[in-house]
């Protein structure tokens, strides 16, 4: 069923439940308006409503433990018990395990029931039991499974009995009504067996379909005579009313209680008439395929057995004769005195009924007993043929079943893993014949392009450059692969599909994609200030796609070819507007926005979809696939598009539900298969041993925060012994403020809020490590808007410094009397100024704040005092990835640039001697996509306030599988004389293939 159809079913289901039971039918008739399949669907769900209540309510571990316990018992197989060799396990019941075994003395096959150890511990009970079993073993009747021996060996009590090859009556019924003639035949044989037992004073007590075998000749054998009494040993009184039930354990009681007579269910003394009642239940079940009474729990069932009359069998089986109905009703009488008083009376009525059935109508077909047995055999043969046919249909569904399942059933989408290496295998692309997938892998240290056969076999390395080669895309004719390489200053390259001469076509660009006709290459950069180009295979100067239109974008998530090769999809946010998908003609002309059906739009909101990173059209032009995040989980989703209007008419449907981030996908040429990367990202703060004066990393370091959360702003005390940090939780709105000692690893949660992700921001230690200042913003609880607070480490009362603006604190004066902050008080919404707040004026320090400097147009962040207190370094951020670091006198004045503004530079820090300024930097123009941050340093002369020499690189992060967390604007860096604290993201992942995505 398609999700949208299901939604319809769901709505009607709930609406029905809100109505009284007697009004539902009328409501559904009106609501379904002739849509019969919809009506059936809702009806069948309603029918299962009450039965489903108890389902899945016991813990999975209990079920697993039971299965496991069953497996353990299998270990007896192959062992001997006395003269019996255990061959296989047939089943397990309340009375122990049953095995098929070989009697080595008489060389015959037997069924061996091994009793639970509990019975052996109670001698009196055991004696009584053996006594009964012995009496039952005296039964010698064609319809009673013979008991051969009651014995004991190796500390285990067992009963050896006749092994009946065939099926149980329970399996024979299996939820379906039997033919009346067959019922009467089976019923008579059971009655015959009971008559023999009752005449010897033996009551069965547990007559049920599972205790009746039908052997291969269609003959009935009743099992377990007299053994049922052992059940009573496990009876538990229900408090108060003196009612007893057989074991309260689920699974056992439900298997037996439905067949119990009222007196047996109440735990009263029973006689042979209880078996008559139970036989009646079985007759009813054979005729209707269902139990006369069913309830969701044992007390409900007990109530029905004691008080309720079952529905007429004719309701479920039109062939049930009135006389048969009368016979069964008589078995069901609540009072034993009102039932058949002997099984013989019942047997007589059954025989009479049978004679009437094989009267004029049937004589031609079946004569006498022989005919009846033959009919059984035919019935059995037919059942077996039906079974075989069912198996064949399941294995090889004929096309008409297949067709129907395509429209009525949700698609089954097998999932297969293609790569198994550690590290990161990603960015799959299909060969046009779908036999191979090319991808990037760092299995040899750095990223190269590899090709792997889908059918298995070793991957083939296509490129070998010591620099990263990645973002492959396979040409539509199958001969070549285009990719981005970082070699030689970076650019786009083309290589024969299985390796060979590599040639550069462009000296810039990322994410190259062949046009459907294979003549052009689309590439560009997403994010802020996006640019998209279309180029040629011989590297002629590329044409910018829709430059004016794109200049209006605040954020471009993805660009990808439409299958017609004339249009390009642009997916992102235009300024101010919400995200949209546009189809833009390659050669210019007005792009067309895709409208969303209200239901699609609602779904997008409901799933809170965000963060689309890549998209692809189905070759048919009827679906768009994209990688997006819903509540912290990144998966591949699909929407259905009207090809004429490009309107989104259905979806979004989630295709992958992985434990990792599912992204970087590609569709096979037939649009049926999806290859994607399942990425697992771990983001932790690491502490690296560091010589801050020399600017050298001295070792591997170690993680200092846990997985499962993102450490936000990290602030290190000047002595490098403690960190304070905020923590974010993907998929949650929780915000936390933590303190951690790097000496002994002890940590403490200082504050937490669950409503708003960024309640706590920019923790900053005072120079003496005695207080932490931070921004606090909880729109739900704070009437006064945002505040800046301080708090003693280790916890304790917070103190308000100032309120009313979103100020971010980044440092303290050495004397601990002022905090340095960036503020938007002069230009609301823009952090255009740096200022100082005197703590002496708390909680209204804003009344005595002191402005230091302002930017006319841009924002200022990350201000820090030099160790001698004379200078402040800070960051001017022009746009998302365009930031320059400056130094100015602590009291304000002229700005001196430390970086050249050509890279994305962020998080400036002073070395403890004040002679170096460290910062993180990403020097690639396409920073958001392929850039990797590293820590850099530049010497500084504190006497004159100017930089000295050129910037130098400190860290050596090279690969996306281990890098400084690229959302640098969200996270912090800490620096002390001997320690550098960085947020590091480690990524691993492999390629998976999902089938039937177009269904």
């Amino acid at each position, binding site marked *: 069923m*398609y999700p949208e159809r299901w939604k319809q079913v*769901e709505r009607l289901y709930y609406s029905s439940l809100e109505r009284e039971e007697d009004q539902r039918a009328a409501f559904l008739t009106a609501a379904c308006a002739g849509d019969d399949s919809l009506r059936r669907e809702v009806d069948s*769900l309603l029918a*299962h409503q009450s039965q*489903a*209540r108890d*389902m*899945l309510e*016991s*813990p*999975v*571990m*209990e079920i*697993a*433990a*039971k*299965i*496991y316990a*069953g*497996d*353990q018992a*299998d270990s007896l*197989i192959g062992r001997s018990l006395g003269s019996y060799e255990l061959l296989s*396990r047939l*089943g*397990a019941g*309340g009375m122990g395990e*049953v095995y*098929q075994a070989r009697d080595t003395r008489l060389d015959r096959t037997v*069924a061996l029931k091994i009793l*639970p150890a*509990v019975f052996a511990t109670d001698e009196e009970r055991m004696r009584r039991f053996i006594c009964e079993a012995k009496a039952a073993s005296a039964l010698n009747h064609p319809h009673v499974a013979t008991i051969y021996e009651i014995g004991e060996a190796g500390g285990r009590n067992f009963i050896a009995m006749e092994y009946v090859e*065939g*099926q*149980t009556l329970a*399996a024979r019924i*299996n*939820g379906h009504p039997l033919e009346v003639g067959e019922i009467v035949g089976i019923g008579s044989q059971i009655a015959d067996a009971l008559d023999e037992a009752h005449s010897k004073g033996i009551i069965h007590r547990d007559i*049920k379909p*599972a205790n009746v075998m039908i052997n291969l000749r269609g003959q009935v054998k009743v099992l377990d005579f007299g053994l049922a009494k052992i059940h009573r040993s*496990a009876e538990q009184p229900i408090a108060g009313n003196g009612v007893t039930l057989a074991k309260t*354990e689920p*699974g*056992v009681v*439900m298997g037996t209680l439905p067949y119990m007579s009222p007196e047996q269910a109440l735990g009263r003394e029973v006689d042979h008439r209880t078996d008559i009642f139970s036989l009646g239940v079985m007759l009813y079940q054979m005729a209707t395929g269902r139990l006369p009474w069913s309830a969701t729990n044992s007390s409900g069932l007990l109530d029905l057995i004691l008080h309720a009359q079952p529905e007429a069998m004719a309701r479920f089986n039109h062939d049930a004769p009135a006389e048969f109905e009368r016979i069964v009703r008589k078995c069901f009488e609540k009072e034993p005195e009102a039932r058949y008083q002997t099984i013989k009376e019942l047997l007589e009525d059954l025989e009479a009924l049978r004679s009437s059935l094989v009267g004029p109508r049937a004589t031609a077909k079946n004569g006498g007993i022989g005919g009846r047995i033959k009919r059984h055999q035919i019935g059995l043969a037919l059942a077996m043929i039906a079974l075989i046919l069912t198996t064949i249909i399941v294995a090889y569904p004929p096309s008409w079943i297949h067709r129907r399942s395509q429209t009525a059933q*949700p*698609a089954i989408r097998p999932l297969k893993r293609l790569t198994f290496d*550690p590290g990161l295998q990603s960015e799959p692309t299909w060969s046009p014949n779908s036999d191979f997938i090319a991808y990037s892998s760092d299995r040899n240290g750095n990223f190269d392009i590899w090709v792997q056969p889908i059918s298995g076999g070793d991957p083939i390395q296509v490129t070998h450059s010591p620099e990263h080669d990645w973002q492959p895309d396979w040409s539509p004719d199958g001969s070549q692969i285009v990719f981005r390489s970082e070699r030689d200053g970076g650019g786009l390259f083309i290589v024969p599909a299985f390796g060979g001469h590599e040639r550069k076509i462009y000296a810039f660009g990322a994410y190259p994609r062949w046009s459907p006709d294979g003549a052009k290459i689309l590439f560009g950069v997403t994010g802020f200030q996006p640019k998209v180009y279309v180029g040629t295979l011989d590297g002629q100067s590329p044409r910018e796609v829709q430059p004016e239109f794109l200049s209006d974008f605040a954020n471009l998530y993805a660009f990808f070819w439409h299958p017609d090769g004339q249009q390009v999809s642009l997916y992102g946010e235009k300024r101010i507007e919400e995200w949209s998908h546009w189809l833009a003609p390659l050669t210019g002309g007005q792009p067309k926005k895709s409208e969303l059906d209200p239901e699609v739009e609602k779904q997008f909101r409901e799933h*809170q979809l965000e963060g689309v990173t890549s998209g692809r059209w189905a070759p048919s032009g009827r679906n768009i696939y994209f990688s997006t995040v819903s*509540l912290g989980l990144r998966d591949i989703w699909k929407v259905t598009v009207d090809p004429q209007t490009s309107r989104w008419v259905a979806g979004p449907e989630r295709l992958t539900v992985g434990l990792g981030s599912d992204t970087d996908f590609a569709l096979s040429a037939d649009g049926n298969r999806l290859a994607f990367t399942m990425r*697992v*990202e*771990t983001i932790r703060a690491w502490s690296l041993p560091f010589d801050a004066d020399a600017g050298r990393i001295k070792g591997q370091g170690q993680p200092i925060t846990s997985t499962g*959360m993102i450490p936000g702003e990290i602030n290190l005390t000047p002595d490098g012994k403690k960190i304070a940090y905020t923590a974010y939780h*993907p*998929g*949650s709105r929780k915000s*936390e403020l933590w303190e951690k000692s790097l000496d002994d690893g002890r940590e403490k949660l200082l504050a937490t809020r669950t409503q708003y992700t960024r309640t706590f921001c920019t923790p900053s230690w005072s120079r003496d490590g005695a207080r932490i200042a931070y921004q606090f913003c909880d729109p739900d609880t704070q009437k006064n808007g945002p505040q800046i607070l301080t708090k003693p480490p280790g916890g304790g009362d917070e103190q308000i410094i100032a309120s009313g603006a979103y100020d971010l604190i980044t440092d303290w004066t050495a004397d601990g009397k002022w905090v340095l902050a960036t503020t938007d008080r002069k230009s609301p919404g823009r952090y255009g100024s740096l200022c100082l707040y005197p703590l002496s004026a708390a909680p209204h320090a804003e009344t005595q704040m002191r402005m230091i400097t302002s930017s006319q147009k841009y924002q200022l962040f990350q201000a820090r005092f030099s160790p001698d207190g004379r200078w402040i370094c800070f960051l001017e951020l022009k746009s998302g990835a365009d930031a320059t670091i400056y130094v100015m006198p602590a009291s304000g004045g002229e700005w001196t640039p430390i970086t050249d503004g050509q890279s994305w530079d962020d998080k400036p820090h002073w070395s403890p001697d004040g002679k170096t300024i460290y910062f993180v930097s990403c020097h690639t123009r396409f920073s958001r996509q392929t850039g990797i941050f590293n820590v850099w340093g530049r010497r500084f002369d504190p006497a004159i306030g100017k930089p000295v020499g050129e910037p130098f690189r400190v860290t050596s992060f090279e690969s996306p599988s281990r890098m400084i967390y690229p959302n640098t604007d969200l996270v912090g860096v800490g620096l002390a004389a001997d320690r550098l604290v960085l947020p590091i993201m*480690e990524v691993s*992942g492999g390629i998976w293939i999902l089938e039937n995505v177009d269904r």
Partner: protein
Amino acid sequence: MATSSTHEITQLLVAWSAGDQVALEKLTPLVYQELRRLAKRYMARENAGHILQPTALVNEAYLRLIEQKQVRWQNRAHFFGISAQLMRRILVDMARASRQTKRGGAARQAPFDEALVISDAPGEDLVALDEALQTLAAMDARKSRVVELRFFGGLSVEETAEVLHISPETVMREWKLAKVWLHRELSKEKSD
């Protein structure tokens, strides 16, 4: 009190969630070991004639297994989600293996089948349940997740709500209908 084995399990779970696939291979036998221990205790109690309280017993074991209070999982939601998937995967694999052994061991129709303690109540055949859940996921992923978290992950309604970022009322609603749907699917399979 955490034994070294539960500690190890937790560590491996952490590693697995961080993408270490080898951890899963190491993890599976440890979960089995825990299951064995539990099954033994389960049987011992039964044999001692006590009324079973498997719910309490198993919940306790599950809590010990994942040692969730020991490790400071800051992203509980993430952790719960992963644990539920892990349990589903391991337990369904185990049930599948058990099923195959039984089929191989007794190809014939076995008698006594209704008396099996391993009840054939809908939902207790983990393999069939897993398959039905996959079908459900294709049409309603959220309900499938709710069942995975509640049943395989052993999460309370509130915890499930936290993981999926929906209200507890919605979880209850989704849980109820998912069960009805599953009950119908699984009954269908049995009678077809």
